[in-house]
């Protein structure tokens, strides 16, 4: 078979889903409300559920399949019940905790549902599919032996990628229907979970839980055929959203008035994050610029070294290894948030904020979110800059580089910097002002770099999927530590700890 590139129509499916998901959120924000908390909580609920599903399936999927053989009912229940417990149950648990802390309210229900759908459709499925198509397209367009290998492999595993326009359109259509079904389902159980918590009505939770069983029919795809499967899934999800909207008619009317009393907290947090983010960019601009410049310099050096190596495989490996170092540099580029925290504490800003009703948890959250915003900027510019540099210097992108970015660089950067920031804030709050390397910022840097170094050192012992487990494990431990520190800080940190020593 002659080598050819994939049909570009396939790009339509993820692009449509990403645009649709973002568009819906923007529409809801303009029409009613969509808060940063709804987005964050839906991320926590969704990412937690996916991580748990991954861990459970990693250890049990194969033995379970061997035990039940080809029993589709058992397999369907195996997947369906995981969605019930982890996705729907997790969404309820996250909403319950957030509601008890006043971070989410009844009229955030739709936003929460849209958030869950956004992370599934625009990020996990849409984002990764788009990235995958870009890499495949770019690799095949580049030609050479790597492209031929990829083409041969795809011709066997996904021959539809090279099909005619008509078949491609059909596939894109199925894919879009499937994502719309997913949107209906996530929206429905997200909304029901928030209402179950806000209105203390367990019947909404009982209505939401069975919706997770939609995954029961996934194992029947082969039996039903793709068209029937997609239509059945769509019909089920449509039923779910109709039932949801019908049963919540009265509550949706009352949600806004019921929520007025707790609206100030999220407004304050949004205001704090916005202001602190601008200030953190200004405070930490030198570190940010140095970090991005170093990452580009490193990328340039790696490309230069790669061009001097003569064997066939090494240049690509060397030139695309920059994601390994990025988390270490990103730690430095994200100092701004912690600097703002230390400055505000020293200057007595927190004394005023507390008097205005801002609590310790909001102060910590605002710094954490500000820092994660800086991580996004630092990583975003460094990654795009390095990819552009790679292409300008004649290199080609490989799937391994994107896998490294997605599975190592991004999660470990966010997790280790969140850990660094929380530890730095607590350290700064419970100690007197110390200048220099022993200051909270100096110590926190080591805490940020530490986990990245541990993963890098251990990576030589963990290869393939075990490396993924290593990164996942370290990320999970860091995430748990961050959450634990937030909870402890909120419960036990005396407000007096945030007063200026002046």
């Amino acid at each position, binding site marked *: 078979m002659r080598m050819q590139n994939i049909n570009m129509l396939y790009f339509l499916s993820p692009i449509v889903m990403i645009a649709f998901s973002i568009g819906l959120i923007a529409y809801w924000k303009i029409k009613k409300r969509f808060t940063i908390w709804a987005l964050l909580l839906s991320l926590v609920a969704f990412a937690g559920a996916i991580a748990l599903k991954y861990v459970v399936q990693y250890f049990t999927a194969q033995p379970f399949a061997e035990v039940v053989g080809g029993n589709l009912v058992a397999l369907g229940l195996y997947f369906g019940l995981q969605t019930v417990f982890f996705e729907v149950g997790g969404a309820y648990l996250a909403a319950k905790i957030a509601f008890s802390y006043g971070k989410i309210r009844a009229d955030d229900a739709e936003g929460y549902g849209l958030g869950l759908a956004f992370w599934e459709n625009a990020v996990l499925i849409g984002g990764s599919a788009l990235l995958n198509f870009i890499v495949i397209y770019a690799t095949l367009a580049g030609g050479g032996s790597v492209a031929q290998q990829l083409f041969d492999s795809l011709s066997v595993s996904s021959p539809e990628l090279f099909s005619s326009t008509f078949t491609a359109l059909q596939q894109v259509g199925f894919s879009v229907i499937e994502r719309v079904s997913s949107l209906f389902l996530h929206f429905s159980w997200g909304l029901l979970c928030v209402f179950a918590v806000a209105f203390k009505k367990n019947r909404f939770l009982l209505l939401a839980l069975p919706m997770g069983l939609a995954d029961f029919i996934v194992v029947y795809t082969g039996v039903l055929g793709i068209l029937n499967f997609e239509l059945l899934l769509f019909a089920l999800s449509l039923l779910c959203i109709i039932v949801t909207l019908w049963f919540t008619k009265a509550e949706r009317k009352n949600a806004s008035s019921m929520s007025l009393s707790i609206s100030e907290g999220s407004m304050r947090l949004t205001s704090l994050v916005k202001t602190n983010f601008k200030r953190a960019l200004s405070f930490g601009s030198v570190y940010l610029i140095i970090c991005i410049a170093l990452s580009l310099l490193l990328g340039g050096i790696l490309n230069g070294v790669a061009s001097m190596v003569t064997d066939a495989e090494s240049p690509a490996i060397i030139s695309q290894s920059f994601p390994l170092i990025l988390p270490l540099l990103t730690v430095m580029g994200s100092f701004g948030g912690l600097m703002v925290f230390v*400055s505000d504490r020293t*200057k*007595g*800003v927190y004394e005023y904020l507390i008097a205005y*009703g801002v609590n310790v948890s909001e102060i910590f959250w605002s710094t954490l979110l500000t820092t994660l915003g800086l991580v996004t900027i630092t990583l975003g510019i460094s990654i795009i800059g390095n990819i552009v540099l790679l292409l300008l210097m004649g290199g080609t992108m490989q799937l391994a580089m994107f896998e490294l970015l997605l599975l190592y660089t991004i999660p470990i950067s966010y997790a280790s910097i969140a850990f660094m920031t929380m530890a730095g804030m607590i350290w700064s709050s419970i100690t007197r002002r110390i200048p220099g390397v022993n200051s909270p910022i100096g110590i926190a840097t080591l805490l940020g770099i530490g986990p990245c170094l541990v993963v890098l050192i251990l990576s030589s012992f963990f290869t393939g999927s075990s490396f993924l487990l290593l990164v996942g494990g370290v990320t999970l431990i860091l995430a748990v530590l961050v959450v634990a520190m937030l909870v402890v800080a909120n419960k036990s940190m005396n407000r007096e700890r945030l007063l200026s020593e002046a």
Partner: protein
Amino acid sequence: MVENYPYTSGTSLSPVVLFDSVSSGYSGRKVLENVSFQIDEPAIYVVLGPNGAGKTTLFRTLAGILKPYSGRAEIGGYSSESQQARKQLDYLTHIDGMPEGMSVINALRFYANIAGATETDVQRVINILDLGDLSFKRFGQLSQGQKKRVSVGRIFLKEKKVYLLDEPTSNMDPKMAGDIRDLVLRLSKDKVVLYSSHNLFEAREIGSKVLVIKNGKLALFGNISDIKTEKYTIGVRTLGAEEVPNAFGKEGDYYLFELSGPQEVPRLISKLLAKNVQIREVKEMQNPLEELFK
């Protein structure tokens, strides 16, 4: 002292400010001990006490920043730590508390957002305190007096029932201090203002009620006229080495004069100038409160 309050949470019967047997402090160390008072009437209540007496701790406890170790601190019938209490109260500390790196107008907008005030309120504050020329300057570029003026502006962002002002005129020149006191007097109509100072003569100028804190305990809660001081000592430093007539003594470079109060200072200066004394500086030689607590 307060005993057996008619207590009804958050109603019109609740005292505007209630401190009932409150002990409070830092890291378990008591600074205030068993302090009780109740305020029902709008007025300026001057909180007097020497440095370290516990004035700031009293304010921080009322502002809900410090949790009392024992007793009840309430605003309008609500615990001072509750959001309902905080909505009724504004607080000015002795620290400027302006976010570093922000312009004056952005710093005010920042606090307006947190306090639930609007852009119109920010513009009103800029007009009231004549901050127009400073609006786009960074806070760090301002003089001490200008910083204090901006800091004071924060309490005018939103109208509240209770204002806690912790030494609002410290580090200010006499004219600016007078201007701020005028603003506070305007603010105090129908409001409860607790105004801390270590200067009895400032207290007399601004308030009619007084709370005197001594060693973490409430020494007096009553009318300011109840406090009598024997003398008001002024020091005059001259440019030359000439003898200054009528001084009762000398302390360092300062010639000492005993007056009945600050209102006599202009007359003394006129007298000295008439006698060709070249005055370099005039200052209070001792804190009248030190006399009060002897």
